[in-house]
């Protein structure tokens, strides 16, 4: 399958284009938060695909870039709130690194809405759902990501 799936959608059903979001969620807070959204049956758009990482500090900017290259329209990284990191200080590194990376992305022409770093705790199912909604709305507005996408 080397065809862009979203193209297929548009042609096959004539449905609107749907953005694709890759989300890296830390195991202890945000992944649990997304689980809670599920347990609480909080609905949100189905555009997000989650990858579990032990800590947001495990997220190498390269992974984010790779996602964009492969055609993701948006990337979300979520971890525990600063100060609450399961690994004490991990998310401080995340913050520092990814802020820098975000600036770089913007420098090369990415809209800020395409890459979001958000703190979502294990009890914030609602916040997770809202974050996804917000991102999807933003991305729909922007349209497909074409800057580095190879697909």
């Amino acid at each position, binding site marked *: *399958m080397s065809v862009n*799936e979203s193209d297929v959608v548009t042609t096959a*059903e004539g*449905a609107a284009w*749907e953005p*694709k979001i*890759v989300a890296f969620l830390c*195991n202890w807070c945000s*992944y*649990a938060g*997304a*689980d809670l*959204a*599920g*347990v609480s*049956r*909080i*609905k*949100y*758009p*189905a*555009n997000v*695909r*989650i*990858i*579990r*990482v*032990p*800590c947001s*500090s*495990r*997220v*190498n*900017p*390269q*992974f984010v870039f*790779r*996602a964009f290259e*492969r*055609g*993701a329209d948006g990337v979300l990284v979520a971890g525990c709130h600063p100060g609450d990191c*399961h*690994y*004490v*200080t*991990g998310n401080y*590194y995340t913050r520092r*690194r990814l802020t820098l990376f975000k600036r770089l992305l913007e420098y090369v022409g990415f809209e800020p809405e395409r890459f979001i770093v958000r703190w979502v705790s294990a009890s914030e199912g609602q916040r997770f*759902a809202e974050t996804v909604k917000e991102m999807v709305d933003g991305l729909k507005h922007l349209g497909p990501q074409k800057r580095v996408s190879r*697909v």
Partner: protein
Amino acid sequence: MPRIGVFVCWCGSNIGGVLDCPAIAQEAASFPGVVYSTEYKYVCSDPGQKLIVDAVKEHRLERVVVASCSPRLHEETFRQVLRRSGLNPYFFEMANLREHCSWVHPDTTVREQAQRKAVDLVRRAVAKAARLEPLFPGKIPVVRRCLVIGGGIAGIQTALDVADAGLEVLLVEREPTIGGNMVKLDKTFPTLDCSACISTPKMVAVAQHPNIRLYTYAQVEEVTGYIGNFKARIRQKARYVDHSKCNGCGTCWTRCPVTVPDDFNLGLGERGAIYIPFPQAVPNKPVIDLEHCRRSTRGKCGACAKLCPTGAIDYEQKDEFVDVEVGAIIVATGYGLFPWEKVYGEYGYGRFRDVITGLMFERMVNASGPTGGKIQRPSSGKEPKTVVFIQCVGSRDEARGKEYCSRFCCMYTAKHAHQILEKIPGSEVYVFYIDVRTFGKGYEEFYRRVRDEGAVYIRGRVSKVYQDGSKLIVRGADTLLGEQVEIAADMVVLATGAVPAAGAADVARMIGIPQDKDGFFQEAHPKLRPVETHTGGVYLAGTCQGPKDIPDTVSQASGAAAKVCGLLLRDELETNPLVSKVNEALCTGCLACQPVCPYRAIQPVTITERLPGQPPRERVVARVNEGLCQGCGACTVACRAGAIDLKGFTNKQLIAEVDALCL
């Protein structure tokens, strides 16, 4: 490519009611590496598990993917299934179709999208599964011995608890006696039982316990190693008295010609140059304070040596070092008092003799203290009739003191107010406070009782104390009335707050535990791991973690002891296999990874490299201590050379997941 099996779970209608599970299974069958794919109503049920075990055999599966609920729920369940099937339990991956898909996208209007998402999630899991490696938890042996640093009530309690569990304990106290601050107290709130009566039996128990080795007048100077396997060096300071000979007869300390202010009594009394801190000291044997000993200051005396019936005095004694191996460390170094006399000029900088601290008051009311229990003005020895207490001295003062509340001073002030009213008929007691904090069981009731007895609480902080003839004039305000108040007092008692014990920073550095903004040792989690530190095998007990009263101190001490027993009663420790590993061939030795590790798990090591055709070469590389690494992965991103990878979440796996999702 390993042979992968996929099991799609319906979870009854939880998943099956929204997603077309057979279709997912069918599509999964076409993913690279998948040799078997099926669906089942409840995969976690017994027949569901059996389905996996059988399929592994029948289809010679090497990796298993279950597409069901959250791995936070059942990952461990299925790993055990793999173990039973004869596979490495880490050859398992899950796709979360329930929490992340069917439950959040139930509407028929988004059915299509949900179904596509589910397929994507399974594809991701399969992609990761294809790249899984077998992992094996490491084993480290455990030294069944515990080091306790600090012999206050926290250290005593924790040492006794651990020793009672049959484990060996080394208790190191830097003063000549154990007991800490608690033995200086007279009575303890809110029940007013005598502090010495409840603490000295425990001190004796420590001295006599067959599993406890007590080092007093000693200090830990170096700690290396990691959980289960620490090495520590203890310095036994010279006492100039050979305790193996001394029988504690007391001849020496009663006859020493020197008198110096006695620090145990906070300068309210005196002692000799050879002394025991207080009559029930443990050990009950003296030390010589060489700084004041006449033999060393003037070159002559030697009275103690002459009088000692056992010949225990040894002016030539030297410090000694003891190297020990322990499996766990409990830090219980306690607290000191806020140095108010350096800060509060408005209270006289310590110039007025009748302005004393709460701890001095404790010594004063103590029947075995320097005044024999008589409450008296230090200036005149007369009984004070009007006593003013000032709370929060040094605490809750972000400008010149500490921002935090010291927790026990409200209660000890109430206790002192009670003692004045009880012992001095016709006395007047005024307490200046900001808030009164009585959080413990029976505390509020005690506070109320003290007010009933006549203590007048005035809400407001005292602005100034000055001497006026024989009186101390205390100027404050009653903020509830909005009026200034001036009290002519005979004695003023300051409720000085707690600060970390002197030298806490050195202890923190030596063991490698962080301090909080105020210098207290940082617990691993303020609520859920209050006795642990971020360093495996190192635990906290008592006020070294933050101000607390005796009940809380003792609970925490027992908590720390339980943790230590839980650790040391195992033969070996199983390490988490999901840790980082340095590829030494790639590592440049830059050590960029080292500072990001919150657990100080990364250390440089020198390796000898033998490349074919070249002479052996020494090179520094980073090495991860698997006993310390917790598997956060922060270091992997810090390494520019890409030399560190995190097992179970490798770069390769994560990239494959990204690719699978973006297909």
